[in-house]
Structure formats: C-alpha cells, structure tokens
C-alpha cells in the first residue's frame, strides 16, 4: 500500500485552507478603502492576514521538518528493504548457481552407472558364453571318450570294451584248443596200448613159428637125406621168426617211448590247461567286473555331465536374468533425467524471480524512496504539483528518472 508523504499532505490539506482564507479576507480588505469607518476593520484584517501568513510560515516550517524527518525515515526503510532484497536476490542467485552443479553431478552419476552397467553386462555375457563353451567342450570330450549314446561306435570306451572282450575270447579259444589237444593225446595214448597188444600177439606168433620151425628141423633131421630141403626151409622160417620177434621187440620199445612221451606231454598240457582255465576264469571275471565298473562310472559321469549341462544352462538363465535386471539402470537414468529437467527449469525460474526482484529494487532506487511515482502523479490535480514533482525527481536523479519514463 502506498503512503502519501508529508509534502503531499501539505499540498492536499494545508494549501486549500490558505486559499479559502485569502478568498474571504481579500474582499474585506478592498471594502475598507471605500468606507473609512472600516479602518479598524482593515487594521484587524491586516493583523489577521499577518497572523495567517505567520501561521502559514510556521505550518510550512513544521511540515518541512516533518517531511524531512519522514524522508529520512523512508530512506532508512528503503535502505533496509533494499538491503533485504539484495540479500534475497543474492540468495536466489547462489541457489540458482547450485542447480547446474547438482544436475552435473546427476549427469555424471548417470554416465558412470551407464558405463558400469555396460561393463557388467559385457562381463556377464562373457561368463555365459564361456560357461556354455566349456560345457559343450566337456560334452564333446565325454562323447569321444564314452560314446554319444546313439549306438555309434568308435569311442575310447567302446574300443577298450571290444579289445578286452576280444582278449577274453582269445583266451577262451586257447582253452578250447588245449582241451581238444588233450583229448587227441588221450586217443594216442589209448592207441599206444592197443599197439602194445598187437606187438604181444606178433611176439606170440613169432615164438609159435619158432617152435614150429624147431619141430620141423627135428623132423627133417629124422627124415635124413630126404628131409634136408625141409630142414633148410625150417631154418629160414626160424630166422624169420627171430626177425619178427626182434621187430616186435623194437616196436614195443618204440611204442613204450611214444606212450611215455605222450603221457608226459599230456600231463604237462593238462597242468597248463588247468592253469589256463583258472586264469581265464579269473581274467574273464576281472574283465567283466572291470567292464561293469566302467559302465557304472560312465553312467555316473554321464549323469554328472548332464547335471553340469543343466547347471550351465541354469547359470546362463540366471545371468541372463541379471543382465535383464540391469534395465533398471535405464529406468533409473530416465528418472534422473526427469529430475534434471525440472531442476534446470527451476533454475531458470529462480533466475527470473531474481531478475524481477532486482528490477523492483532498481525502480525503487530510481525513485529515491518514492518508488513507482505514477500513483503520486495520478493523484495530483494541478499541473504545478506535477511540475514540481518532475522537477524534483529530475534534479535529484537526472538520467535515471528519464530512463524510467517519469
């Protein structure tokens, strides 16, 4: 609310009273010259006029002092107001300057988290790819070692199983051959016994022939000259008998040696066969047990590899989930942008407010405490009042008053 100063109050209230008094007394003074009787009246009028002028002077002096005091008070208040406005604008300016710092901090945080998110994403992806690669490599190695489970042959385990089975088969075949050999040798031994019987028969025949030859020789001697030819035949028969007996004897010895040697070989072979059968049985059991263990281990390994593959896939899914969770970085970035934007807008508004306050302060300073004096100019009804106001403001503030359009 604008408060009229003391000078304004004087012009508004005191000057019109002086004018009214002058309008009443002036006719009275003029009539005193027409009527001499009114000399006392004129004297009184002069006295009144002098008194009124004196009162006016006193009032003017009083109003001037009041006005001066009021101006000093107003200047003091304006100075205080100006100081407070200055403090406010300085505060607004300080706060406005902080906002770019805050937005700069937020932008840097956004950039840093973006960079960190990118790096984390790349690392997680690398982990997933490496885990999958390792699982695939391990699965390939296992397939080459243990087979792919599709019946395709060629794995190390398949080849080992075949080799072991082949070795066991060969051992079995060897045992069969040995058994058949023993049977053949048994037949030879039995044949040797039969041959010995035949040799005994040959010896018996040779002895009988020898007896016949001896008897024939006796009978030939008894016949004398007539029996000489028969004696020669009997002698030849006896010689044949001796040779038969000798051959049979040789044959017996030979058969006995063959029989002895064959029995010796049979005995040794039988021992080897028994040993081989024992070892074969043991080896077969060991191989079967080994193959069974290998199968068990392979099944366990396959189960573990399947679990590893499952774990790897699960790990990949989890990491994919983590990577996708990082989209919160983008959401956070956008929310920060939604903070930065209004903050910058707020800065602009603060600066605008600061400028407006400064403008008001400048205008008040231009009026030297009168502020926007248009209200006073509007209030004046006389050109002299307005002229005086302009003269005063122009004299005191020169170009500033002109610049504000006053």
């Amino acid at each position, binding site marked *: 609310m604008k408060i009229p100063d003391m000078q304004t109050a004087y012009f508004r209230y005191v000057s019109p009273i002086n004018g009214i008094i002058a309008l009443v007394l002036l006719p009275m003074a003029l009539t005193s010259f027409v009527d001499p009787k009114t000399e006392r009246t004129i004297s009184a009028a002069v006295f009144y006029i002098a008194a009124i002028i004196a009162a006016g002077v006193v009032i003017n002096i009083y109003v001037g002092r009041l006005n001066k005091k009021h101006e000093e008070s107003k200047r003091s208040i304006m100075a205080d107001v100006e100081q407070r406005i200055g403090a406010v604008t300085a505060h607004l300016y300080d706060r406005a300057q902080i906002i770019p710092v805050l937005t700069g901090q937020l932008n840097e945080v956004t950039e840093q988290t973006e960079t960190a998110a*990118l790096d984390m994403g790349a690392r997680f992806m690398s982990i997933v790819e490496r885990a999958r690669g390792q699982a695939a490599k391990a699965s390939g190695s296992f397939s080459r070692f243990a087979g792919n489970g599709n019946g395709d042959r060629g794995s190390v385990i398949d080849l080992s199983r075949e080799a072991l089975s082949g070795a066991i088969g060969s051992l079995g075949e060897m045992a069969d051959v040995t058994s058949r050999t023993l049977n053949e040798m048994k037949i030879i031994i039995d044949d040797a016994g039969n041959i010995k019987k035949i040799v005994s028969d040959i010896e018996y025949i040779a002895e009988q022939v020898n007896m016949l030859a001896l008897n024939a020789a006796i009978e030939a001697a008894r016949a004398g000259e007539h029996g000489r030819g028969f004696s020669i035949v009997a002698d030849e028969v006896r010689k044949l008998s001796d040779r038969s007996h000798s051959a049979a004897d040789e044959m017996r010895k030979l058969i006995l040696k063959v029989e002895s040697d064959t029995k010796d070989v049979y005995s040794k072979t039988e021992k080897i066969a028994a040993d081989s059968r024992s070892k074969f049985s043991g080896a077969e059991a060991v191989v079967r047990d080994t193959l069974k263990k290998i199968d068990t281990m392979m099944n366990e390994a396959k189960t573990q590899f399947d679990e590893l593959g499952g774990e790897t896939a699960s790990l990949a899914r989890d990491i994919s*989930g983590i*990577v996708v969770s990082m*989209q*919160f970085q*983008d*959401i956070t970035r*956008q929310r920060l942008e939604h903070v930065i934007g209004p903050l910058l807008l707020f800065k602009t508004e603060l600066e605008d407010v600061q400028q407006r306050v400064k403008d008001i302060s400048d205008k008040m300073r231009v009026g030297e405490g009168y502020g926007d004096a248009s209200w006073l100019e509007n209030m004046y009804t006389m050109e002299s009042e307005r002229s005086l106001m302009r003269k005063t403001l122009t004299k005191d503030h020169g170009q500033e008053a002109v610049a504000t359009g006053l």
Partner: protein
Amino acid sequence: MAKTIMIVDDSASMRQLVSFALKDAGYDVIDAINGKDALSKLNGVKIEAVITDLNMPEMDGIEFIKNVRSTSGFRFTPIFMLTTESQESKKQEGKQAGASGWIVKPFKPEQLTDLVKKFAK
C-alpha cells in the same frame, strides 16, 4: 539363416541387454542410437521386426515409427515400443503411429522373445 531384428534405443546398456536376449534366442541384431540413425540403417536390409524406445534425442520413437511406415518395404514390419512409459495416451499415440505392440520396462527376456517369435514369422 538367422532372422534379423533391429533395436533402437539411446541407452547403450538397453541396446546391449536386448541384443543379448535376442541373440540368445537365435536372432541377428542391428542396433541404432535413435530414430534418425535407425532410418539410415534400414536401406537394403531385410528386417523381421523392430524394437524401439520412445524417448530418444533427435528423433523419438513415435516419429521414427511414422517414418518407417512410410518407407517402402516396411509398411507391415512388426514394430514394438519398448519403454518405461505406461500411459494409455502414449500407447494410443504409438498405435496410431503404426506400432504393433508395446513392452513396458522392466521386462523378462521371455516376454520379448515370445512377442518377437509371435510376430516375426
């Protein structure tokens, strides 16, 4: 031969993770940093679907979709909006511009790949 999907987003981390999800599902990916960049990469490329952000510098998602729809060969290409915006008015704006679908962040990879599989036949 793998199908190609275009991802348009000004956030490098978003491009990265969407690419990761799509590549994991067996797709090839072309990425662009905004609508203008994406338009320059459309020429001579067979793209099965486009996934675009909404708020981007230089050319936003809505403007980009309008441009794509007026580009020969891309009138019926599936375009999905991928953004944090969930306002119905924005969805309608995207739909009117020519968007085929809408995915709100945060999303699960299955949501993205299922949607792409459904449309990008």
